[in-house]
């Protein structure tokens, strides 16, 4: 798809982003139902935590990660390459590209779960980030999270779709009580469970020096935000060390679930005034 012209016209985001990803089975589960991927050309990071079915959770999370990554990569490369035919087809905004890719992944998982009995009831959480033009589009479904470390402060930028979060929002329990709840495992939204799914998608401004963390609940159920913050602050230039330390902390605290982390550090500005981009800015407003 790409020609020389397109290479010139487009900034490869690998110059702007440092990405490290790590997944670990933990200490108690016999297989890893998490799936993770990243593509630093198009600035995509994606993580899914599969569930349900007879050991089919990993089927759901694999389908989600592979199909969304492939679809976004193709769509974004096409729109960047300036192919007339492709360009006509892909005047969709990046936000719309993500929504479409997630919708297609949902259908794919749902269809498999309907047609294969051992996959019945499978589904997956999802958290993904697409970096473009000094912005981050962050989408999620379920209780996989995204955090941002800026000026040494860690902030959770996704809100879990979980029973616990609903209870906290409704004022039924405090976040402090939530730590002792037996409902940690109940999500209110998942990919592939129903014919339709609603992705929560938000846009954030990105600053050089930011560190973004995508993780499954295997990390956040066992490692407090304060420890995550101090780990990322201890050495934000060595992302692999930070990722390994986070996984180790979760395992030290019991390793009850699969643990996945993706870390993204913003090294340089990636402002890019492409015409197709301006089109979707208009769409977002």
């Amino acid at each position, binding site marked *: 798809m790409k020609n020389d012209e397109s290479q010139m016209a487009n900034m490869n985001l690998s110059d702007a982003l440092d990405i490290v990803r790590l997944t670990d089975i933990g*200490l*108690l*589960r016999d297989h890893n139902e998490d799936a993770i991927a990243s593509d630093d050309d198009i600035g995509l990071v994606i993580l899914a*935590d599969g*569930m*349900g*079915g*007879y050991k089919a*959770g990993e089927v759901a999370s694999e389908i989600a990660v592979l199909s969304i990554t492939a679809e976004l990569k193709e769509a974004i490369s096409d729109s960047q390459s300036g192919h007339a035919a492709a360009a006509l087809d892909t005047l969709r905004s990046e936000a719309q590209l993500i929504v479409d890719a997630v919708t297609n992944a949902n259908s794919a998982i749902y269809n498999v*779960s309907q047609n294969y009995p051992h996959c*019945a*009831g499978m*589904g997956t*959480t999802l958290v993904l980030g697409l970096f473009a033009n000094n912005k981050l589009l962050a989408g999620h479904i*379920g*209780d996989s999270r995204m955090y941002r470390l800026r000026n040494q402060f860690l902030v959770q930028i996704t809100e879990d779709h979980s*029973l616990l979060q*609903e*209870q906290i929002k409704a004022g*039924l*329990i405090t976040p402090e*009580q939530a*730590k*002792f*709840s*037996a*409902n*940690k*495992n*109940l*999500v*209110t*939204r*998942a990919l592939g*469970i129903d014919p339709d799914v609603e992705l929560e998608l938000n846009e954030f401004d990105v600053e050089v020096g930011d560190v973004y963390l995508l993780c499954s*609940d295997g990390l956040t*159920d*066992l*490692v*407090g*935000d*304060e*420890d995550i913050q*101090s*780990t990322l*602050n*201890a*050495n934000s*230039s*060595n992302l692999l*060390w930070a990722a390994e*330390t986070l996984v*180790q*902390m979760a395992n*030290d*605290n*019991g*390793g*009850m*679930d699969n643990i996945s982390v993706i870390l993204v550090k913003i090294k340089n500005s990636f402002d890019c005034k492409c015409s197709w981009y301006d089109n979707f800015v208009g769409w977002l407003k």
Partner: protein
Amino acid sequence: MAKLILSLDGAFLSEYPLIEERTSIGRRPTNDIHLDNLAISGNHAAIVKAGNDFYVEDLNSTNGTLVNSAATKKHLLQHDDVIEFGKFQLKYVDEAASNDDEAAGLPAFEKTMMIRPSALQSNTPQPLVKSTSSDMQETEHSFSGQQVSDQSVPSPADAATTATPSVSAAGKVGRVQVLNGSNSGRELVLNKALTTLGKAGIQVAVITKRPNGYFITHVEGQILPIVNGVSAGAQAYALNDHDVIELAGVKMEFYLANH
């Protein structure tokens, strides 16, 4: 299954398994738990189920509801909580949690499941509608498996709540004391999972507190940390009592002490 044990002035009266979505308590005979005493309001309180959790809710009773001796309007019940109405006590017992004292009150680590928002609205959360019988068996199996292994793995409760692992094997907490320079004599308690030492941009190391002891790891700078006069290397290095650490020209002693 969770249940309530009713007693009067400490004498056992009855036992109530918590099966229903809502269990009412009061002086009126229509209540699920009928307490015939003037100190009890007609509709005094209710136990409400939410997923695997139970709440006690005071229904604006005249004399109030106490949980563990503190007045409460609404409380998320934990194993061994004692609810008091006048002279009556209701003890909340969660048998799943009480199988293992270690696990009492710990967060459950069952597999993630989906529940329907519609189920939420009707206040009757039903786990994953599509779950087949094999699903359920698998979930139960994994839960009982966890009960067993809880004994061999460190308790996650401390980490989840106070953000520090449980006290190290020896029951002691590590400290470092600076031995030279302007900060000589200064002490630092290593009560966090991770403590950063050194000067940013020159030499930085972290000491991690783990269930099997304390470890120092190099994270930044050309020079690796020195322990007892020898380079500790680039990997995590286990610290022993009274080791002397050298970082960016500063010497400090690591030692274990009681709280």
